[in-house]
Each structure stands twice: as structure tokens, then as C-alpha cells.
């Protein structure tokens, strides 16, 4: 057993915590420790991941590329599971003229935990596929997840479902780790559905409120549509390639992409089916409608599940199966264009949303669109943005949670103003998060977003017929401008200006109408917590206040630091960690990271970086002008663009369209089927039941209890029988 084999323990630590928290949910005496057990298990998983990191990435960070490759090859030869992965070493230099260097060899290990399914040709074990992409995901899930869980210990402290919440969180981390560590599509699907289930449980955490229950169901049902495609994609891959293991699929797909093997025609559909699953999970158009509603879960859930980790599973899937996606012409193009469309769609909605969490929810959808552009144009930026986005979006959500907590459930940013004086730390933290989200130069979001847009535009310029990449990059730039604007619109509105706030459940003249059912539910939740605090002899605040440093603000400080320097450290200093790692992952197996074209007389990346810096600063400046300096300007801008703002505010009426186009016909169908069931089927069944009843009614007179009567009946019966026999034989 080598050090790498320790990875098989990593997902099971949160599983143990989930068992403990599950018990704690039943027995209140254990409840107090539940949060910390969950946090400890996640950080232990993080520590283990860091511990095996060097052993799991041999040669990846070697500056000498050839030495790195040599070692990687040795690693692969030593690893019996990966015996196909290295056959293309060496001849790629000639195959791809635009290659900057030889493609990074896949560095991977397969660690088996338990044998699982072995039926006919199908083999799927509970085994873990560890390549640099997996490691990145594991670090994000356990690292950011641990910080969010720490914050949640404070945030959920007065919630009645404290232990239940942490059970679901532990279970979520368990499932999410299986999703990213799975060595075959079946186990990946299991993790995929597992996170879906945990998402359902966590969105519906406040199950007494209808809005939360409805949102949970919506998330689950919308994801079913995507997952159907995903499942069909897995079936198709198994049918065409004969295996569900990455060790078999990836080299097979690579061979097809490199033209060494002809692709089965049916395999062309696989990427499109898988894409459906990815779009469902990552809330891309047209399956984006569930994510904004998912905000009815507790805020740490929004940060963990619906911003940092679970929703990025779709991006992970595309990155993991990049060679498979490259098989079908048009697949990557579709991913990029859907990503760009979604980025713009969600950014415009976020412009006009007045819901504190809603803005960030749409912003998440928008940023996921960026990530899809990134993975589609074969940029390191896709997964890089996933990482930086996890940092700053978790930070933003948690800071938003602090604001909401301080205002007893308020979500309407129109009722908030000048909170910066009351909550200076939160304001500062959120400012940092907003800078990173807006892509302010040299923050984490700047580097990653830039890499995506730069690679997209560079690809569009360098390659004939890659108009789609150029289009995606251009749309991305527009969305980036909108992002900077809406992010700072929110920040300036909430934290600057004259102090004004409305507590969730005000008294006297401070009464208010909730903006939405969601806000009403959140206000109810805050009130329940206030009762809980009073019941324990404390007194709840009636005015906004800063959150305690521990355990709530400290994790945010760490996330803020990562949001500022994360991009620089990962991408610029040292050996360009993220680039190096991804080049040795399955993402660049078939095609090396492309060389860059020139734009405006300079390297496309530099040009795009300058453009997007200007865009980000312009967006922030415009937001400051309209919502910081002179709010009348913002109001008149809103009034001037009222018609289009109305469309944005209602999310392009997508929910209403779905309600009319899909939900209504389905309800109608359900109604008709119910009517058929009760009127036709039920009556047929009842008629069948009536037959014996009628027979009984007709016959019961013959049963009089006279022994002689029965005797006569018997004799008569025999006589008839004999008569029939006689007639049959003689006549």
C-alpha cells in the first residue's frame, strides 16, 4: 500500500460524520457536537488530500517537460490499470503543428476500495481515479467545504434541525467526493445522484415552509431531465466502447480523436446526452430555472452546494470527459455557445434582481456559463475559474448570509442601505468578493475569467471556422461587464449611502411586506431562531450587528485571502500550478493546450486582459456613479430601461413559460389520467368485485342447512353427470 492508496479513506471520513450526525438528529444529547464532527471530518479529508498530493502527482511540477513526461510514463507503466494511456507518447509533436509543447501525459492512479459490479462485460468497482483534475476538485470540495461548514456551525447554531443539517452536509461531501473521484461512470452517476439527493434535502431544510419544499422538488425534478440524458449517455458509451471505466473510455476516445481508430457512428450522440446532464446539474439554459429557487435553503447550503461545489459538477464532467466530447463535431461548440448564452442571460437577470441571494444565484449561473466556455475551448481557465469561483462565490454567499442573519431574514436590497457602518467586517469581506467576481485586475476572478475569454478569443482568431469561440468570447466580455456592474450595484446599495434597514419582522411602524414568498419564509425562520435564543435565556438583536469572528468571520477572511491571491498564486507564480496540473489531467489527453493567436498586435491573452480590466473597472465605476455617488441617476437609469428591466426582473419569464408550456400540459394530462383511473379503471375493478357478490346473492337461498337437501343435490348432480356420460358414450 503506497501513500496514494490512502485516498480511498478520504470520502469515508465525511460518511462517518454523517452517521454520527444522523444519530445526533435522533438523540439530542449528541446534537451539540454534530457541527464540529462534520467540520473535523471535512478538514481531515482535506489534510489527507494534501498529504497524498505529492505522491499522486509525480513529475507534474517538474520544470523539465521531458523529465516530467518520462516520469509520468514510468508511473503509468507501473500502474497496471493504465496500460493503454501512454501509447501516443512521442508522436504528438508532429501531429499537432500548433502545439506549444507535447501534451501533458495523463498522470493517474486507480485505487480500488471495494469490488462492486461485475456482470458479463460490465465492470464497475468502488474505485477511485486520481488524476490532477480529481485532486483539484477534492481540494476545493474539502477545503472550501470545510470553511463553509465552520461558518455554518455559527450560522445554524440556533436552528432546530442543527444535527439534521450537518448530516446532510456530511453526506453531501461524501457523495461529492465520490462524484469527482469515481473511476467509472456508474460510480460517478451514483455520486451525481447522491449530491442531487443532498441538494434536495438541504434546499428543503426548512420543510415547514412550502416555498422551500417546492424549491427542493423543483431542483430534483428539473435535474431528472438532465440526468435522463446523462444516464442514456452512459448506456451509449458502454454499448459502443464496452466499458464504463475511465481507464478504458479515455484512451479509446483519445484514439478516436487522434484519428487512429474510427468512431462508431452512434457514439456521436454520447457527448450531447452527457451535456444534458451537465447542463441540468450546472443550471445552464434551458435547465437553469431550479437554481434561483434553491436559495430557499440555509445560506451555507447556497454557498456550498449551489455555488462552490455541486453545480460545478457539470463543468467537471465536461473536463473529465473532454476526449469523449471532442469525438462529436459540434459538441464543444454547443457547450461553448450554451455557456455564453447562459452567462449573458443570467447576468442580465442579476442586473435587475432585488433579492440579495438572488443576485448571487444568477451570478452563479452566469459564472458557470463562463466555466463551460472555458472547458469547451480547451482552456485551463474553465477548471481554474471553477476553483477561484468557489473561493469568491462562497465568500459572497456567506457574507450575504451574514447580512441576512443580521437583518433577521431580510433579502430585499431595496430596503437596505448604508450597512457598512454597522457591519464593517462583512462589508469589507463582501467588497473583496465583489472585486474578485467583477474581475478587478489581479484578483482571483480576473486571472481565471481572463484565461477563459483569452483562450476563447485566441482560438477563434487562430482557427478557421472557430467563429463560435470568438462569439462566446465576445459575449463573455459583455457578460463580464454586466457582472462588474450588477455586483457593485448590490454592494453600493447595501453598504453605502444613508443608513437604512428594515429588520425581518419589525414592530410598530417598522412593519413590512415581504418581497416574495421566499423572503417571508426566511423571516419566519429568523423569528423561530429568535424564539429559540430567548428560550435559552439569551436576547436576540433588534438591530443589525457584526457577526462573531469565530466561527463565522474567520473562514470568510481565509476565503477572502484566497479570492485575492488565489488566482495569482495558482496561475502566475512558481510553476503555474493549475496549468501544470490540468495539462496532466484527462482534459488535455487528446489535444494539447493550444498556442495563442495575436490580437491588436499583441498576444491575444494580454489584449483580452487589458480589455477585460477596462471593462471591469468601467462596470464598477458605472455602478458607483449610479448607486454609490448619485442614486437618483440609478433610479432614472432604471426608469429609462423599464420595459427591458421588467423582462430581466422576471427572468425572461422562463418560469412562466415553463409553467404554461410544460407544467400546465403535464397537469392536464395528470388530470385526464386521474379521471380515467377513477371513472374507468376503478369501475371495471368494482364490476369484477360485483360478480361474486351477485352470485352469492343468487345462490344463498339454496343453502338451507337441510342435510337431506344436500343429499338430494348431490345425487341429482351425480345423476346429471352420469346422464351426460351416457349420452356422450352411447349416443
Amino acid at each position, binding site marked *: 500500500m503506497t501513500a496514494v492508496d490512502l485516498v480511498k479513506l478520504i470520502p469515508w471520513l465525511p460518511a462517518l460524520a454523517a452517521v454520527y450526525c444522523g444519530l445526533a438528529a435522533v438523540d439530542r444529547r449528541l446534537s451539540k457536537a454534530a457541527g464540529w464532527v462534520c467540520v473535523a471530518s471535512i478538514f481531515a479529508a482535506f489534510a489527507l488530500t494534501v498529504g497524498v498530493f505529492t505522491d499522486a502527482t509525480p513529475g507534474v511540477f517538474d520544470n523539465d517537460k521531458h523529465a516530467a513526461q518520462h516520469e509520468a510514463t514510468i508511473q503509468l507503466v507501473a500502474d497496471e490499470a493504465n496500460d493503454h494511456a501512454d501509447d501516443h507518447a512521442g508522436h504528438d509533436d508532429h501531429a499537432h503543428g500548433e502545439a506549444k509543447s507535447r501534451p501533458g501525459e495523463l498522470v493517474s492512479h486507480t485505487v480500488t476500495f471495494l469490488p462492486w459490479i461485475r456482470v458479463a462485460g460490465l465492470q464497475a468497482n468502488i474505485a477511485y481515479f486520481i488524476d490532477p483534475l480529481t485532486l483539484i476538485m477534492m481540494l476545493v470540495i474539502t477545503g472550501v467545504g470545510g470553511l463553509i461548514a465552520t461558518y455554518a456551525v455559527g450560522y445554524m447554531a440556533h436552528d432546530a434541525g442543527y444535527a439534521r443539517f450537518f448530516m446532510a452536509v456530511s453526506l453531501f461531501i461524501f457523495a461529492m467526493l465520490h462524484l469527482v473521484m469515481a473511476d467509472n461512470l456508474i460510480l460517478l452517476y451514483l455520486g451525481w445522484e447522491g449530491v442531487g439527493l443532498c441538494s434536495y434535502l438541504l434546499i428543503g431544510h426548512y420543510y415547514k415552509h412550502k416555498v422551500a419544499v417546492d424549491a427542493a422538488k423543483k431542483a430534483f425534478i428539473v435535474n431528472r431531465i438532465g440526468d435522463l440524458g446523462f444516464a442514456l449517455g452512459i448506456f451509449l458509451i458502454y454499448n459502443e466502447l464496452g466499458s464504463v471505466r475511465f481507464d478504458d473510455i479515455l484512451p479509446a476516445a483519445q484514439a478516436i480523436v487522434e484519428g487512429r481508430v474510427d468512431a462508431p457512428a452512434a457514439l456521436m450522440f454520447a457527448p450531447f446526452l452527457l451535456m444534458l446532464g451537465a447542463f441540468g446539474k450546472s443550471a445552464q439554459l434551458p435547465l437553469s430555472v431550479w437554481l434561483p429557487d434553491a436559495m430557499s435553503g440555509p445560506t451555507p447550503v447556497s454557498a456550498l452546494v449551489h455555488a462552490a461545489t455541486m453545480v460545478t459538477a457539470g463543468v467537471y464532467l465536461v473536463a473529465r470527459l473532454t476526449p469523449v466530447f471532442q469525438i462529436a463535431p459540434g459538441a464543444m461548440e454547443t457547450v461553448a455557445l450554451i455557456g455564453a448564452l447562459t452567462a449573458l442571460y443570467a447576468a442580465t437577470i442579476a442586473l435587475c434582481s432585488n433579492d440579495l441571494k438572488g443576485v448571487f444565484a444568477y451570478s452563479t449561473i452566469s459564472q458557470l456559463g463562463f466555466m463551460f466556455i472555458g472547458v469547451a475551448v480547451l482552456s485551463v481557465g474553465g477548471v481554474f475559474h471553477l476553483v477561484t469561483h468557489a473561493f469568491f462565490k462562497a465568500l459572497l454567499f456567506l457574507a450575504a448570509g451574514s447580512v441576512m442573519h443580521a437583518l433577521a431574514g431580510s433579502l430585499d436590497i431595496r430596503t437596505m442601505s448604508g450597512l457598512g457602518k454597522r457591519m464593517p467586517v462583512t462589508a469589507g469581506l463582501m467588497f473583496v468578493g465583489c472585486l474578485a467576481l467583477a474581475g478587478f485586475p489581479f484578483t482571483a476572478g480576473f486571472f481565471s475569467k481572463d484565461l477563459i475569454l483569452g483562450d476563447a478569443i485566441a482560438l477563434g482568431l487562430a482557427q478557421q471556422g472557430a467563429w463560435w469561440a470568438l462569439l462566446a468570447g465576445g459575449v463573455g466580455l459583455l457578460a463580464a461587464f454586466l457582472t462588474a456592474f450588477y455586483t457593485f450595484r448590490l454592494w453600493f446599495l447595501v453598504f453605502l449611502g444613508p443608513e437604512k434597514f428594515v429588520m425581518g419582522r419589525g414592530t410598530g411602524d417598522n412593519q413590512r411586506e415581504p418581497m416574495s414568498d421566499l423572503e417571508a419564509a426566511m423571516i419566519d425562520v429568523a423569528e423561530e431562531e429568535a424564539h429559540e435564543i430567548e428560550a435559552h435565556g439569551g436576547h436576540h438583536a433588534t438591530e443589525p450587528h457584526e457577526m462573531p469572528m469565530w466561527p463565522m468571520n474567520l473562514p470568510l477572511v481565509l476565503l477572502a485571502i484566497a479570492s485575492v491571491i488565489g488566482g495569482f498564486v495558482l496561475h502566475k507564480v512558481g510553476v503555474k500550478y493549475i496549468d501544470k496540473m490540468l495539462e496532466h489531467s484527462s482534459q488535455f489527453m487528446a489535444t494539447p493546450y493550444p498556442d495563442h493567436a495575436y490580437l491588436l498586435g499583441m498576444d491575444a491573452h494580454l489584449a483580452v486582459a487589458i480589455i477585460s480590466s477596462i471593462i471591469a473597472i468601467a462596470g464598477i465605476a458605472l455602478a458607483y456613479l449610479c448607486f454609490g455617488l448619485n442614486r437618483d441617476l440609478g433610479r432614472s437609469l432604471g426608469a429609462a430601461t423599464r420595459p427591458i428591466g421588467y423582462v430581466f426582473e422576471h427572468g425572461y419569464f422562463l418560469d412562466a413559460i415553463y409553467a404554461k408550456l410544460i407544467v400546465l400540459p403535464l397537469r392536464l394530462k395528470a388530470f385526464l389520467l386521474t379521471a380515467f383511473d377513477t371513472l374507468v379503471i376503478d369501475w371495471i375493478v368494482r364490476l369484477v368485485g360485483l360478480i361474486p357478490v351477485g352470485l352469492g346473492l343468487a345462490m344463498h337461498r339454496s*343453502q*338451507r*342447512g*337441510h*342435510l*337431506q337437501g344436500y*343429499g*338430494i343435490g348431490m*345425487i341429482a348432480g351425480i345423476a346429471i353427470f352420469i346422464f351426460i356420460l351416457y349420452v356422450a358414450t352411447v349416443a
Partner: protein
Amino acid sequence: MIGALPPMPALAVALSEAALGHFLTTGAILFVLGLIGFVTRRNLIVMFLCTEMMFQGVVVSLIAFSVYHGNVTGQTFVIFVLTIAAAEAALALGLVVMLFRRRRTLDAEAWATLHD
């Protein structure tokens, strides 16, 4: 298995077809008398005796056929029937005594209410 058995010993006396007819008529008369008795009488013991009489009618027919065909199977069967009739008589009379103790009568109509 049947084929493995030794052949049945042939019986010394053989019946003519006319004699068989007489025996069968006797059996049928016994049977029908028992039947009529069973249907018309209401005393449980008499009814029971009538069923025994029907048995005897059948038994006579069986023996007649056995002798006619020169085959002992029928007579073997009669031994079984008599044994079972004896066991059944013990049981049935016990039941009749029980029923009599309940209702203090042997009338079969006394039990006609059992049908509900």
C-alpha cells in the same frame, strides 16, 4: 411397477353373465334403498345406517365384478372399504352421540341453522 408384479391368481369359480346381472341388481337395490332411506329419514342414526347400506350395495357389485373377471383386485378393494366403513362408523356414532347431547334429539333438522 405394475408390470413387475407376479400375475394375479385366477379364481376357481367363474360367473356367467346372467348371474353377474343378478348380483348387480341386488347391489343396485341395496344402494337405492340406502339412498331413499338417507333422503327420507330424519333420524341421524337411521340416516347413518342407510349410508352403510349404500356401501354394502357397492361392495356386492365390486365382488360380483371381481369374480366375473377372475381378478382379486375388487375383493382387495372391498377389504379396504369395510375397514374404512368400520372406522367411520366409530367416528360417526361418536359424533351422533355428541350432537344428541347438545340438542337432546336425533332429528337432523335440529341442525339446519348451521347454514348461516
